[in-house]
């Protein structure tokens, strides 16, 4: 596996081209996801952030280029290899994508029962653990997805994504549609889980607060490729007009100030 800096790359995208009929979404796109980091993907609406995520997790076949996950080319892998790779990642779709005919608990148990041959009682215990770890109340397991609020559906989706103890977690706009308190808690939850479970997180997001609070690195998609990738400071130094506008706009500045204030507070507490 190629080394880049100190950490391994768990996902390597090289020369990716994706298109819908004649409409080219990405061209010559390169991206690395390093082990143990939280990578935030930003870009304007319609720049193909979600399409990139779908390409990596095997839902949108690229027109050209290669995508390596754990060193294997997913689209060239055999069916058995694909199943193995799929068990090593968890995906949280934008709306949660819970199976509407199953309860939350059954949703979480679905991948466990499908991939691991475990006694029912143990599967139930594991599902209960994941539901609780995703920050859901005790009685949520019995509810059907249609009875959940947007935030709860996301947490339930997260519980299902975590069911098999994945190494990579893919999140598609995890905080979109949550109230600020809920969004903040979700950020904390992701950072916590990353620390304690050693997750690598690939996150498509629009939420500037999330970018400051949770992400180790940021990749900016524009002009059909990744125009900048690195820490926020590194990305800002590229001076690309879209990036300037994104982070320099009123919301970007507010998120920056908020992050600074929080940092100082933490610094004081540390003293």
């Amino acid at each position, binding site marked *: 596996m190629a080394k880049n800096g100190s950490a391994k790359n768990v996902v390597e995208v090289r020369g990716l081209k994706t298109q819908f009929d004649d409409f080219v979404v990405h061209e010559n796109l390169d991206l690395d996801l390093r082990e143990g980091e939280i990578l935030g993907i930003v870009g304007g609406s319609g720049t193909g952030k979600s399409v990139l995520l779908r390409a990596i997790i095997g839902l949108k076949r690229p027109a050209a280029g290669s995508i390596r996950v754990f060193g294997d080319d997913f689209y060239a892998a055999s069916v058995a290899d694909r199943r193995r790779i799929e068990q090593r990642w968890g995906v949280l779709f934008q709306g949660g994508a819970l199976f*509407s*005919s199953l309860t939350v*608990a059954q949703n979480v*148990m679905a991948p*466990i029962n499908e*991939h*691991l*041959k*475990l*006694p029912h*009682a*143990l599967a*139930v*215990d*594991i*599902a*209960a*653990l*994941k*539901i*609780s*770890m995703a920050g859901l109340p*005790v*009685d*949520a*397991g*019995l509810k*059907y*997805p*249609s*009875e959940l609020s947007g935030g709860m559906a996301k947490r339930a989706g997260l519980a299902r994504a*975590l069911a*098999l*103890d994945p190494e990579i977690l893919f999140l598609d706009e995890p905080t979109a549609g949550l109230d600020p308190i809920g969004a903040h808690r979700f950020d904390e939850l992701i950072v*916590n*889980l990353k*620390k*304690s*479970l*050693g997750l690598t997180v690939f996150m498509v997001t629009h939420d500037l607060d999330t970018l400051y609070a949770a992400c180790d690195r940021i990749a900016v998609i524009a002009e059909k490729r990744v125009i900048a990738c690195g820490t926020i400071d590194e990305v800002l130094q590229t001076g690309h007009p879209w990036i300037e506008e994104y982070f320099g706009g009123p919301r970007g500045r507010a998120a920056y100030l908020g992050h600074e204030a929080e940092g100082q507070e933490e610094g004081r507490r540390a003293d």
Partner: protein
Amino acid sequence: MAAAGPADFDIGLEGEALKLTARGDWLARNLGRIDTRLRDFEDDSVGRDLIIDVSGIDKLDTAGAMVLQRLFHASEPRGGASAIVGASPGHEALLKQVEPHLAPVAVSPGRRNAFLMMLNRLGQGVVDAYFASLQILSFIGLTLVTAARVAALPKRFRLTSIFYHMEETGLNAVPIIGLMCFLIGAVIAFMGAKILKQFGAEIFVVEMVAIGVLRELGVLLAAILIAGRSGSAFTAQIGSMKLREEIDALKVLGLDPIEVLVLPRVFALVLMMPVLAFIGAMLGLIGGGLVAWRSLDISPALFLVRMQESIAMSNFWVGIIKAPFFAFAIGVVGCFQGMQVEGSAESLGQRTTLSVVQALFLVIVIDAFFAMFFLEIDY
């Protein structure tokens, strides 16, 4: 560290305390084999001091950490000597992460008496059926009242929408309805030909085909196909609009969903169904006539003459008159079920099925009423 392998453990004593020495990979997929043994030990360990030595564990995931913590917390409080020892920093963090989430989460509802539940379902079904029929009656009333109101204000008539649905439910259904009726007409003629030949009464195949197709089969087949084709489509369209809150959006914009969505569909269907029934009947006659010609040597000219002589025009009208009533039933039921969709995609599927079943049921019931009615008035 111990050699990697499937999860396993040994039980021993350390002073007064029980000691569990874990080794191997404590990963979810390995835990199935030891879970029962572990639970047994859990019961044995209640009320005693317990030391869990995890230094022999090679790989640990949340499920492994969970079963260890479950064991440790199976009896609270454990005595002072109890501890989980020998964890590497990574495993320590994982064990800590899992600890607060051991509270039991309700996962499956409790079991109840099966017989009582059956009675409960039966009662619920009767009550539901009662309210469902009330609801559909009130929906029919609502549709008629809205239709009357719109009739008074012809400007609010949605012509574009009506024409669209006329094309969608009427014109586009012509090939399939025509083909079906053609084939059914041919089949009837074939059956008749075989039996009537034995009596030398081949010519009566004309009556058989004409009365059957004109009075009943043309319109009935058209109605059945439309119920399956358009009734279900109405439910799916309106139902998915309901799921995406489009119906609510219409309401707050001051638009009446009945007027915007239901009336054009029902109206288009009521207009097109007689046409479809007519086309069905004609193709049924052609199918029957062709078979009569090929296998009974009844020429088309003879077929037509015989029809004119012996088949009253009333047979044709009986068929056509029923068409708008069928159409109204199919359209209203389809739209009504669409409006009843709630919550999930599953509900949409259920309602779509229900819409077809109810529409077909109503069509047959209405047909039976008409049969009795025409019998009484001797038409």
